[in-house]
């Protein structure tokens, strides 16, 4: 490898020996592509004309009134596919094509990354197979159907907790068996080097646009930039536009049924140093290092580790991390729907919910920029179940 991709003491390359040559190949292709004007031109052309960038930055005045601060929403929910995941999927699929790979595999939790990968595979004519936990397939059925419509094969993962971490395990097993022709299109800023760096590269467009847009609209930088954190790709993407400035970077994790319970996915708050999925990071685990099953109303945040750069940013204090419970996220869902006519993804609702806490602590002139990472259509089933009083649980 040309680098081991450490962020402080987190990151690295911790994979079976068989995968190292494949990661070397991805790293080398990425380093070349990221310096290649033609590659970047094609990537930005597709982002603009296929995916619909730039996404708007919207000042949510009704919500601002409700929260008591100036709230701006970076509308990644309006990106083609319905979430920020499209930025990364298009970038990596172009990389796969450049590497001459004839098959793409990916894992997905909420299904948004699976949908984005299936779209990119269809667009570039590369057969795509998606691994998804059986529990996640059950709670995200519309996205499963979308992936199939887009021509992808969806494999149900029936082992372990049947959620995102098991889908990643299966995708890695597939990759190690099919290295010659297969590209593993990882969906979040996690995993072995070069993925955390590579995914950040393809997601930094969110922050670059938001930086420019907020200066145009508000005439100054925001006080805070807030984004939800599961693996952490949308957060790292928007943070990237505001690093080394006065802006406070805030990541919001899923507190599920409460941090005092066992039912949450707040890795940065409650995790301990560990090593899984090819990286050193923080993990929710037991005394021996067996990885725990996590819980969140939002399948996209239901992951027992976090991208290594977030663990590092927390250590250095460059970003701060908070959490919001299922109930707080759901309340934020309804608030945004009623005040602005926008149905946000349950993932993004965690950021929305914590923004209210920040607003309460600040002044009406305070500017909070929230990354609305995805739209909520996929979550209607979950929200309906809550309306009907059915408790949300999964094994």
């Amino acid at each position, binding site marked *: 490898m040309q680098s081991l991709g450490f962020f402080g003491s987190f990151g690295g*390359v911790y994979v079976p020996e*068989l995968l190292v*040559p494949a990661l070397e190949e991805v790293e080398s292709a990425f380093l070349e592509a990221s310096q290649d004007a033609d590659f970047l031109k094609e990537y930005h052309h597709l982002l603009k004309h296929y995916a619909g960038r730039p996404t708007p930055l919207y000042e949510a005045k009704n919500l601002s009134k409700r929260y008591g601060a100036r709230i701006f929403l970076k509308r990644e929910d309006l990106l083609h596919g319905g979430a920020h995941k499209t930025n990364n999927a298009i970038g990596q699929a172009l990389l796969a094509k450049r590497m001459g790979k004839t098959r793409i595999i990916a894992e997905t939790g909420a299904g948004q990354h699976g949908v984005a990968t299936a779209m990119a595979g269809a667009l570039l004519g590369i057969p795509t197979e998606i691994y998804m936990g059986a529990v996640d397939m059950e709670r995200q059925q519309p996205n499963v159907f979308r992936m199939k419509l887009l021509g992808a094969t969806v494999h149900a993962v029936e082992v372990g907790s049947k959620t995102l971490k098991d889908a990643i395990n299966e995708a890695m097993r597939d990759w190690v068996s099919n290295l010659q022709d297969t590209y593993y299109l990882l969906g979040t800023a996690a995993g072995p080097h070069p993925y955390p760096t590579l995914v950040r590269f393809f997601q930094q467009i969110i922050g670059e646009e938001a930086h420019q847009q907020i200066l145009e609209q508000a005439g100054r930088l925001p006080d805070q930039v807030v984004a939800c954190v599961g693996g952490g790709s949308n957060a790292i993407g928007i943070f990237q536009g505001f690093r080394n400035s006065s802006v406070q970077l805030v990541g919001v994790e899923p507190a599920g049924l409460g941090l005092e319970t066992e039912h949450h996915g707040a890795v940065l708050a409650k995790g301990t140093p560990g090593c899984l*999925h090819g990286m*050193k990071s923080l993990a929710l*685990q037991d*005394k021996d290092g067996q*990885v725990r099953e996590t819980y969140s109303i939002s399948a996209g945040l239901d992951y027992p580790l976090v991208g290594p750069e977030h663990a590092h940013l927390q250590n250095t204090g460059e970003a701060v991390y908070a959490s919001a419970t299922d109930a707080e996220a759901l309340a934020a869902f309804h608030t945004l729907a009623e005040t602005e006519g926008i149905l946000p993804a349950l993932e993004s609702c965690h950021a929305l919910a914590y923004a209210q806490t920040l607003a309460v602590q600040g002044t009406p002139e305070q500017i909070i920029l929230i990354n609305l990472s995805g739209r909520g259509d996929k979550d209607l089933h979950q929200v309906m179940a809550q309306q009907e009083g059915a408790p949300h649980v999964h094994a």
Partner: protein
Amino acid sequence: MSTLKQAQTQSRYDDLFARLKQEKRHALIPFTLLGWPTPQRCLESVDAFVAGGASALELGLAFSDPVADGPLIQQAGRTVLEAGFDVDQTLGLLKQIRQKYPHIPISLLVYYNLVLVRGIDRFCRDITEAGADGLLIADLPVEGIAEIKPALDQHGLQLTSIISTRTSAERLPKIAAQSGGFLYAVSRLGITGVEERYDQSLGHLLAQARQCSDLPVCVGFGISKREHVETMIRLGADGVIVGSAVMAKIQELGPEDSIEPIQRYLQTLSTPIIP
């Protein structure tokens, strides 16, 4: 103490391979998970391994997320963990095996998180005291070995490393230089399991390994029959590791069945091959 320990542990693998060479025999290294399907049955399996001609043992610590393993070992790990069998109990079982078989080389197969969370030094000390000679860390490539090398050396543990047909000519000597006991060559890309195929360039890999290292090379992944063993020895292997196939046989047995079929099965794989 550590120097004495080092001398003892190094000699178990060194003695084994020196003896096998003299006798023109190959090494047979069966694998199972410690504590599976139950601690008692696991001890009986090891008895059958030794009686069936095992030259060394490869024993796994159950892990929640074994990314390098196929369905059988994944499920076995889950069974062990669901029974509440933790690392301390696993090391207790290892101690019993070591007491019963003081001379057989034993290596533990682990995932790195178990080492890190216990603490690298404490983990190495504890497994040494329980009787392990060596360690194979499934998800620690050569890039990460420097993190654990001081502890391995201090406790006299040998590190078995994996090599494959995708390992470059530049990487191979680096891996060999950090390894001890033997090199573990995987017969094919992929995960553990009984799938019967091997990479055509395996013979080339074994020849390359010979050129850059004096360590014996044993082949694993997909070895389940006598003919596989013969093929690997013909290609230049010093021995074979048999994991999923032997675990599948153990799984076929009921809880009350005698473990003797495992012994007979291993005997078919361990009989000397006359070149």
